[in-house]
């Protein structure tokens, strides 16, 4: 699973998930992509599950980019422990996803196959997403 190799601080504040994605919202590498439509904390486990779902469907086809990375540690107190005595220990890693963020990108496959692969990845994610391609963008 994805996690940082070095961190400056072991624990972080929770923060807020206001607004839309300022960066990482456009297709940068591939022809097709999966874009987030809701905010969430996406765990390393969910990102990996989506990757595995795409990989199993595509087998030996195409190239996949993962555009998100779980930088943020989430802490948890052990069960049956009284409140206080400091913050809990890091339990898992997440990335703060805001609406518009591109999660995966694909290249080297047909649109129909890319759509199905992204649908399978979407099933593993905790938010609503949409399939985007370089040709499909319509200005409004």
């Amino acid at each position: 699973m994805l996690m940082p190799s070095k961190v400056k601080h072991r624990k972080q504040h929770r923060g807020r998930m206001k607004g839309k994605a300022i960066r990482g919202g456009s297709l940068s590498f591939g022809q097709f992509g999966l874009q987030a439509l809701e905010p969430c904390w996406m765990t390393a486990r969910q990102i990996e599950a989506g990757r595995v779902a795409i990989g199993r469907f595509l087998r030996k086809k195409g190239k996949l980019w993962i555009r998100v990375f779980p930088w943020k540690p989430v802490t948890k107190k052990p069960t049956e422990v009284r409140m206080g005595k400091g913050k809990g220990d890091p339990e898992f890693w997440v990335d703060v996803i805001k609406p518009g963020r591109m999660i995966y990108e694909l290249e080297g496959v047909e649109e129909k196959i890319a759509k199905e692969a992204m649908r399978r990845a979407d099933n593993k994610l905790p938010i609503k997403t949409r399939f985007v391609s370089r040709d499909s963008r319509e200005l409004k």
Partner: protein
Amino acid sequence: MEMTVKAEVRESVGKNAARRLRREGKLPAILYGSKTKNISLVLSKQDMFSILKSGRGENTIFKVAFDSKKKNVMIKDYQLDVITDELLHVDLIEIAMTESIEVTVQIVLTGEAVGVKSEGGFVDFVNREAQVRCLPRDIPDQIEVDISGLHLNQSLKLGDIQPPENVEFITDPKTVIAHIILPEEEEIEVEEEIEEELIAEGEEPEVIGEERGEAGEEKEEKKEEEEKKE
């Protein structure tokens, strides 16, 4: 024939005024250039759509008419809403028709590579654009590149492409445009994956600047002892 877009000068600036304009179906814009001061404008969305959807897209040169003036401009930048794809704002730059400019032109691949047809590879389109320098009238719509001769593990670099007439590439000629590669194999050994996950869950990343080793542990022990005394 060059297109002329009607515009109005706007005096109200800021997000509130811009949102009011957008609600009315208009588009806030700004015009600037090396010899002109910044002028805030209001444009019609439809005009901008027709320009952005045209063959040359952002690199289309058109005239903008306001206050009995007409200026040759092109789109320098535009902002879209990441979710709704709504056009939010346009930056226009004034162009001198006699001076060469630097623009980004799309690269389009044509033909089916040998490496794809018979060797089982696929095209990895690494760079889809190239920076070019030319006179405004010489800006190409797109640069078409034939990749039908590419075999597996071969790449096409910008230096291999012949630029159109009166156009000069600024991007590094060593830049890879496309290469034919074999897909990476996906490891589907479930047991191994689970083991890896278990290891990963127990691990913690290295903290930058924190003392490690015996000295660090001794300090921690001292701290704990002090806490117990308290």
